[in-house]
């Protein structure tokens, strides 16, 4: 058994209702456990669509998603071993930090002692001790994203999808959170796919980065190599000349 996420010929047609156009997409990629694979590429290239397909928010017309050789694409979003973080609106604003995290374990919020303890441990791991009664509005942007990561932790799912989760944060906070994330993914042997518009984030977070363009993965390389690669036209267009 190969311990990895493997996506092959995962197909989807994106319909742009405003322009009345259809964009066919097909993705192939692999990511290993303990790895954060960054996804970069121009707007509208299909990065978020790929995450939505893996999470089950969009239904693929063809292809496979294998986690450790087991197919997962037939499952509903709640049954997939996937947690997803967005750029914003990851938390319910009227619920406190503890409840926002606890929802990840049991939506009915009837937690056992062990489960309550798990929430407490996640708070400690993410440096959020003492914040459990606070509402999201009382937290900074970085703290809010930490709470969302804590929820992903307590869910204990193997795949973590990150859709520009740090885009709204300042450079210091981004660096700090990326370090937290790297440590967690590595320690828990998770597989993380991170969409980012900042090449520096990819460089900091990922050994490997995939370039997505026109509804497909056009290249997967060592991050530093990919960011220095101006021979490919689509990468040159996206990153600009050195």
């Amino acid at each position: 058994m190969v311990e990895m996420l493997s996506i092959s010929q995962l197909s989807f047609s994106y319909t742009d209702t405003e322009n009345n156009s259809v964009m066919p997409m097909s993705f192939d990629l692999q990511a290993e456990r303990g790895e954060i694979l960054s996804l970069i590429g121009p707007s509208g290239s299909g990065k978020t669509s790929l995450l939505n397909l893996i999470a089950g928010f969009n239904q693929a017309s063809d292809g496979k998603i294998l986690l450790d050789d087991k197919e997962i694409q037939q499952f509903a979003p709640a049954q997939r071993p996937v947690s997803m973080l967005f750029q914003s609106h990851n938390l319910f604003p009227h619920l406190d930090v503890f409840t926002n995290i606890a929802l990840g374990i049991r939506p009915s919020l009837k937690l056992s002692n062990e489960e309550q303890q798990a929430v407490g441990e996640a708070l400690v791991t993410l440096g959020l001790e003492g914040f459990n009664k606070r509402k999201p509005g009382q937290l900074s942007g970085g703290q809010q994203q930490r709470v969302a990561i804590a929820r992903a932790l307590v869910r204990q799912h193997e795949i973590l999808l990150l859709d520009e989760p740090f885009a709204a944060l300042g450079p210091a906070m981004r660096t700090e959170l990326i370090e937290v994330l790297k440590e967690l993914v590595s320690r828990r042997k998770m597989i993380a796919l991170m969409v980012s518009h900042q090449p520096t984030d990819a460089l900091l977070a990922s050994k490997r980065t995939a370039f997505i363009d026109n509804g497909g993965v056009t290249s997967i390389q060592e991050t530093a190599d990919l960011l220095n690669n101006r021979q490919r036209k689509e990468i040159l267009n996206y990153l600009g000349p050195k």
Partner: protein
Amino acid sequence: MHKPGKSAYPVLAILAFMVLAPMIALLTVPGTSFIESESLAFWKSAYLRRVLIFSLWQAFLSTVLSISLALIVARAFARHGKFPYRSFILKLFGLPLVVPAVVAVFGIVSVFGSGGWIPLGRSLYGLNGILLAHIFFNLPLAVRLLLPAWQSIPKQHWKLAQQLGLNSWQQWKYLEWPALRENLPGVGVLVFMLCLTSFAVVLTLGGGPKSTTLEVAIYQSLRFDFEPSQAVVLAVLQFSLCAIVAMFSFRLQKLPEVEITSSSLQCPVDLKTLALNSIILLVAVTYVAMPILAMLVDALNGPILQVLMNPKLWRSAAFSLIIGLSAAMLSVLAAWLILQSSSDLYYIKQKRKAGYLEMVGSIVYVVPPLVIGTGLFVLIAPRFNVFDWAIPIVILVNAMMGLPFAIRSLGPTMRQNKMRYQRLCESLNLKGWDRFKTIDWPPLRKPIGLAMALVTALAMGDLGVIALFGTPETTTLPLLLYHQLSAYLMSEAAVTAAFLLGFCLLVFWLLEGLIGGGGDA
């Protein structure tokens, strides 16, 4: 430093006169004062107690039923993004806003009256009929006011709900209820206020000793019992109730804009829920469409030519049109003058003052039209023949009734124009007419067209103050229809009702198209 304009002052002065003069008259004119012994006895009467309790009870029941049903319908609507003819249904739900109350009442009688499609017999008249009519008006309004709450839920939350496996109840609890909670009290108070001051519905479907509200009792005291002192007591009581409800309303404030896109949510539903949602929507659509359809069917079977050949109909139509257009022009002008000043205040960051200024335009919610009418009646009666003043009074009161709509329609664009272009216009020395035609008018065209169309249609279909002051010589279409209904001339009434509805819709469509046509808001 930019100084706030004073354009609102004349409007405020007129509004103050229109509210204070009748109120002072109600409280002080000899022979009618509400604290005189005759009035004091009336304060303690069982009749007054019964009227007061019924007014509150019918408004409470109407609100609870309309809002509860609206929540069910709005939820089905919000979660059923691909329901066929979605935008058509949204337009249909906007129709009760322009359907004259007396026309809707006729439709409800056609459906639920004896011989109707779903006959309820005599039990239609009284509380049952009033509730059915109030639900007809307020269910679609509440649906349209509540729907934006669903659209305010971030799409990421729906994705989270899917990922966390939240069931329908948990989605309601964690996503939908928190979004609705802010708007619900405001919508509830608005519906309560509309039902508390509802006149035409109660006059036509209630009105008996058991089902009379304060508004109708005022009318009966003045026009049938000739008891101005009694009317004064009732008017003071109605004013006090409305002031209390308005205070709640102003405290709550939170009322969403009635602007709904036809986009759907990303919330997946199973087949069973989909079927249930479809049934709920079909029932709601049928309920709103049925009275209008029934009225049209009755009209087609009625003496069309005979009614259309009657000069009374055309004279009434002319009066209605004059009242509607004049009220709308006054309303839009007043709104524009108020908003000029309030936009200036917004511009210099005095938002609270600006808010208060715009709130004055909604004074009609605190002092209901019939209370103003009663005050004017009491004020004018000792000096002049009140009925000679019918048309100007009805125009002024209808203009006041339309003012909140006009302010709501023009407000956002006028504020936006001020914030975006004021500095640029000052630097280009663009002001007065030049500024209006090149900068302000293009984006204002559409909201002005909508405000003109809406206020005209509302005033044309209003059966309120005209019932107090109207005479055979100054009869409007709604009053003519009411007279036909009172005389049980049902087939003639059907044709008049269809004519009135068609006339209102035609004028609405023409004004919105002609004035608002090419503008982009």
